[in-house]
């Protein structure tokens, strides 16, 4: 060092100082935005800041137990519905079928989770005759009523049971429920929501961005 020319030394110190300024600027950026990474232009509504996905556990249509956290490493699409739902729920499942078709081989990194809001009628057996008809890779969860309430609250999902017709079949009622699609990333963070009328082609690019992220992110 002592052998170096004075002007070189000066330049070195300037470089160090500039690097320091750059580091300060980067830190300012990180502090300001929470993340240095630019936010993608999502089609869905971003959950900001991302929050850990609520716990979700139940029995899948094939009798296996299911836990949402057991699927860390996969992107998860969670939505609520019931098998007697005549209009919206089948459309939601058909959209999921379009979505996984669009993902092709990457579909194995995505878990589609249909949560029944009607555990009294949607037994595991009933779900087994419904959900795999769309795609056997889809999960269809039966959750006991006392547990379902807490899970729905955690997701911000409302469930209201209609009244059966007077003097008619007591097993015939409608269920009002939140139709939001909840998107959970590989690391288990709730990242996006989509309204019930979103299309598969709107969801696909967002899912692809999340699939490109590191699971440990």
């Amino acid at each position: 060092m002592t052998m170096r020319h004075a002007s070189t030394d000066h330049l070195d110190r300037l470089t160090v100082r500039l690097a320091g300024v750059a580091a300060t600027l980067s830190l300012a950026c990180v502090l300001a935005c929470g993340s240095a990474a630019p936010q993608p232009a999502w089609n869905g509504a971003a959950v900001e800041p991302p929050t850990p996905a609520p716990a979700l556990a139940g029995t899948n249509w094939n009798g296996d137990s299911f836990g949402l956290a057991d699927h860390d490493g996969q992107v998860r699409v969670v939505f609520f519905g019931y098998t007697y739902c005549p209009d919206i729920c089948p459309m939601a499942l058909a959209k999921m079928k379009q979505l996984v078709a669009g993902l092709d081989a990457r579909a194995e990194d995505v878990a589609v989770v249909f949560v029944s809001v009607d555990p009294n009628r949607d037994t595991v057996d009933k779900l087994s005759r419904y959900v795999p008809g769309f795609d056997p890779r889809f999960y269809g969860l039966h959750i006991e009523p006392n547990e379902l309430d807490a899970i729905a609250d955690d997701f911000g999902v409302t469930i209201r049971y209609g009244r059966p017709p007077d003097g008619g079949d007591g097993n015939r009622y409608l269920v009002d429920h939140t139709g939001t699609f909840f998107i959970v990333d590989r690391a288990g963070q709730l990242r996006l929501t989509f309204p019930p009328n979103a299309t598969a082609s709107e969801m696909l690019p967002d899912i692809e961005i999340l699939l490109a992220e590191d699971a440990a992110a």
Partner: protein
Amino acid sequence: MSTDAAAHPSARRRRGPACCAAAFLALIALAGCSSRQPAADEALADDFVAPDFLAPETADQPAPGPEAARVPLDEPPVAELGELAILRPRVMLLPTSAALYVTVVNRGAAAERLVRAASPSAALIELHESVVQDGAMRMIAHDDGFVLAPGGHLALEPGGKHGMIIEARPPEGAESIAITLSFEHAGDVTVDAPLMTASEILEGGRR
């Protein structure tokens, strides 16, 4: 299917790459992006407070179905009844539920009303409408039927007005069932409605 995401209601809630730009602007305004958090949703029920990750929903939005499932009004009708044209009747049949979709064009100068739909292969068909209310999917029963304005049309389509078919019992191996539509003035017309999967319905229900 629509790929025009900008026209979609969800586009209103899109949060652009503002953070990226703000990274540069952060020098000037360190406050940057932290104010972009969505406002907490309004309470959905008296005792319910939505978590703040639930995006706000406009109350009572109709729940428009996918564009691909919409029937062009100039499509050749499968049947005509006076001034009414019946377009693309179809039934979505699932193990536990079934729905009737059809479009009716009123070419007349008088208002008309669809008062009832029925089928020998179903216990009952109720006229319903799916709507989004406070973020929840609701079904509204239209016991008085659906009005067709003069020169207007009625579209029973996924995510909106539809016939909820109760106890659909199509004959073994049937590919379609008979549906009778009853109108206040024009009377009854019976059409053959193909039985379809949800995916076929979502993709337009053409046969």
